[in-house]
């Protein structure tokens, strides 16, 4: 096993992802299986190879710094879980 249950809990916390206690061992087993698959990559020498992030090796396109979007606040907030006075509401952060 590559990953222990505690490590899975730590990763889940990093991802802010709720995982049921009874599922932790299953994820540890599955992720360990995936990591085992990945060890195959270690057999290939990749020294000096440039990592590939984009199939076309394109640079990010630039555009003129002008406003293109109109104000969609009402439209977007209409589908939000909780809003008030144009603001998204979350539980109190600062006491």
């Amino acid at each position, binding site marked *: 096993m590559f*990953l222990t249950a505690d490590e*899975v809990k730590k*990763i*889940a*916390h*990093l*991802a*802010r*992802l*709720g*995982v*049921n206690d009874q*599922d932790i061992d299953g*994820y540890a087993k*599955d*992720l360990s*299986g*995936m990591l085992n*698959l*990945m*060890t*195959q*990559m*270690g057999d*290939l020498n*990749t020294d000096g*190879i*440039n*990592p*590939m*992030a*984009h*199939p*076309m090796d*394109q640079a*990010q*396109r630039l*555009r003129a710094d002008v406003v293109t979007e109109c104000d*969609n606040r009402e*439209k*977007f907030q*209409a*589908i*939000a*879980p*909780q809003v008030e006075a144009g603001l*998204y509401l*979350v*539980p*109190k*952060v600062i006491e």
Partner: protein
Amino acid sequence: MHTKTIAELAKGLRSGEFSSLELTQSFLNRIKQHPQLNCYITVTEEPALQAAKAADARLAQGNAELLTGIPIAQKDIFCTEGVKTTCGSKMLDNFIAPYNAATVEKFNKAGAVMLGKLNMDEFAMGSSNETSYYGAVKNPWDMTKVPGGSSGGSAAAVAARLTVCATGTDTGGSIRQPAALCGITGLKPTYGRVSRYGMIAYASSLDQGGPMARSAEDAAIMLQTMAGFDEKDSTSVDLPVPDYRQELNNRIEGLKIGLPKEFFSEGLNSDMASIIETAVDEYRKLGAQIIEISMPNLKLAIPAYYVIAPAECSANLSRFDGVRFGYRCENPVDLTDLYTRSRGEGFGKEVKRRILMGTYALSAGYYDAYYIKAQKVRRLISEDFKNALSRVDVIMGPVTPTTAFGIGEKIDNPIEMYLSDFYTIAINLAGVPAMSIPAGFAQGKPVGLQIIGNYFAEDRLLNIAHQYQQVTDWHLQIPKGFE
């Protein structure tokens, strides 16, 4: 009406044989008659009838396009303004998209009539359509089998003639694998050919939308509408779009087909191998030359993909936090609880598995060992394709190692499910276009032939597929009960 191609339907609409309203109504009736397939998450009956009436008016005025009045269905990964867009997830069960995806907008503009939104694996993560919050889709050729995934609803709906054509998206095979398992024609275009604007992101450097249809000709008509530069997609490629239909009838004598020996090794079921060989023979009869090639790094495509795709997914899916849209848990005690429980309750098991994997691969201390290593392997895989495609015009092989597997057969064994994507995944890593076309049946279930081409050679792929469909009739077969 439901067995006709897009071109035939366009003709019928113009000759007055039937109206778009009649055509649309007949498909809506078929959808109601076959709920057991579970293809549709949402049927947009009223808007469809309105769109059909508008299309009839446009046809009468004489300013119609080829797709005007033709029923289509959208994979539920494409945002549709005012219509529920779920991505197959509980997380977006309440999400009414506030805008249209570029692809949806283009089909609307062309006058195509949207019948509804199609079922899919949750956030496009799956190869069987079993990870959908809305339940598994069934394969119309055998109701005990999966239709493939993630565009399983799209493939099953086209195969069962519950729509004329459908959109799909392909991150690791999600158009080609369900197309193969359901006996239809599917095309994953070159990365950057079709706009990703409004297409809910899974792995942004791999995702690509494409057509799923009954024939190469129908796929060509769809791609004509879908392809092209979009400034709203920062990785869209600004290149002219050829006239795909015009290229369909080109002769293919002298075509050089490469068969990678890695595609025909022990993993391939013998029935599948012999069907692929017969299809390749058909091309030989059409004047093609067959060349054996080798792509030594293909075997590392699955490990590289299962680092890169989860890494990108863990970043992309961080936007689902219960704050601005989508699912929010009940009575969160604090902000961390809000994030953690909304995501924990809103996402299904496979999505969680991939978020965890991606988070791990990107975390401090593991980034170089997994993520950078996988990106280097990706470069070598893509060079394998470049080298091969400098010697041959196209690469052919299977799409899947077996025909459709049973519902429930692999869902509890994710690694086995991942390994079944061996033939499709490397194509996304390289970014080249590829198609799946029907090439025969094994024990009554469809088998797909994969055709892989060079960057932006969709016209060539469609031409090669179309020529095969002129001399075979696999693509015309209809599953029993859906004639």
